[in-house]
């Protein structure tokens, strides 16, 4: 019940939450996404090319990656008309639990807080909600590395298997891998540098495993993370040029 109230309220407030988030990023932080129009067109095209719930998996270097990716993928007016374009997020609860305003913003900004390394029952409840939302046609944005990469690169050794479990539990789920990085982003940080310009690449994959349970979750998560690592090579190829 609580989830559906949050879903309804966040839908109603998409124009407001989008507006403030984008104004802050665009004018407050002076961020730029040079290929914004092409990126959004490509995103819509990828969604049209198949059916099934979409799990968006991004690389993770800053604390506002989810906001930036949301901005990159769809304009506010379009997300207002089609709320599934505004994905749900699973932020670490401790990042905002102390501030009531941030908690409210996260609530209307479609966040389902997770206690990292918390009680498994609690994590399980959140994952059940994620499954429900995906089956209802919403999308979700997850960072499969489980946290900001301390290497500054996609970490193909230490990643979480949670995303694999989610994909396993939702039949027909597609995974949109999104590689997103500021040109000035050398390492992980809280925020990208002011005025940074962002590179973005995306690829839709359908990861699968013949194994059930945890082994299958590990296989699927591995496929996603390796796909992101491949896309990162593309970023460095472009950067070298």
């Amino acid at each position, binding site marked *: 019940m609580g989830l559906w109230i949050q879903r309804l309220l966040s839908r109603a407030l998409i124009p407001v939450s989008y507006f403030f988030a984008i104004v802050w990023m665009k004018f407050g932080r002076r961020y730029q996404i040079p290929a914004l129009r092409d990126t959004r067109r490509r995103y819509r095209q990828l969604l049209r090319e198949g059916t099934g719930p979409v799990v968006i998996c991004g690389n993770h270097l800053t604390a506002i990656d989810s906001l930036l990716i949301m901005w990159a993928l769809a304009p506010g007016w379009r997300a207002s008309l089609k709320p599934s374009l505004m994905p749900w997020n699973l932020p670490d609860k401790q990042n905002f639990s102390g501030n009531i305003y941030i908690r409210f913003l996260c609530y209307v900004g479609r966040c389902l807080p997770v206690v990292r*390394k918390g009680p*498994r029952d609690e994590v399980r409840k959140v994952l059940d909600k994620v499954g429900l939302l995906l089956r209802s046609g919403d999308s979700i944005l997850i960072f499969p590395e*489980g946290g900001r990469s301390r290497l500054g690169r996609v970490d193909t050794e*230490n*990643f*979480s*298997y949670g995303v694999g479990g989610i994909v396993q539990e939702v039949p027909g789920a597609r995974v949109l891998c999104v590689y997103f990085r500021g040109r000035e982003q050398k390492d992980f940080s809280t925020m990208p540098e002011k005025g940074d310009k962002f590179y973005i690449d995306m690829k839709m994959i359908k990861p699968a495993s013949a194994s059930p*349970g*945890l*082994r299958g*979750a*590990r296989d699927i998560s591995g496929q996603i993370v390796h796909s992101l690592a491949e896309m990162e090579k593309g970023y460095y190829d472009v950067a070298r040029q």
Partner: protein
Amino acid sequence: MNQTEAFDKVIKVITPYTKNTAALASAKSDTRLLEDLGVNSARLVDIVLAFEDEFSIAIDDDSADKVLTVGNAVDLIVAKTTH
């Protein structure tokens, strides 16, 4: 398989995932994998899968969730290999 055999094998399996090797050397049944041995929580899954491979058993998700200490792992393996 008895408790002692299982304990030794469990220690062998979890060694590559352990950051606190000093704690591993003096590990007992109540030694906690995450807090005491410094195992990364994401690697708990790898440990459970390594148990499956090492002992040729299948561990369901609910049982895997209960493996929090060395003793939990030993009990689970003894139970699975004696049935």
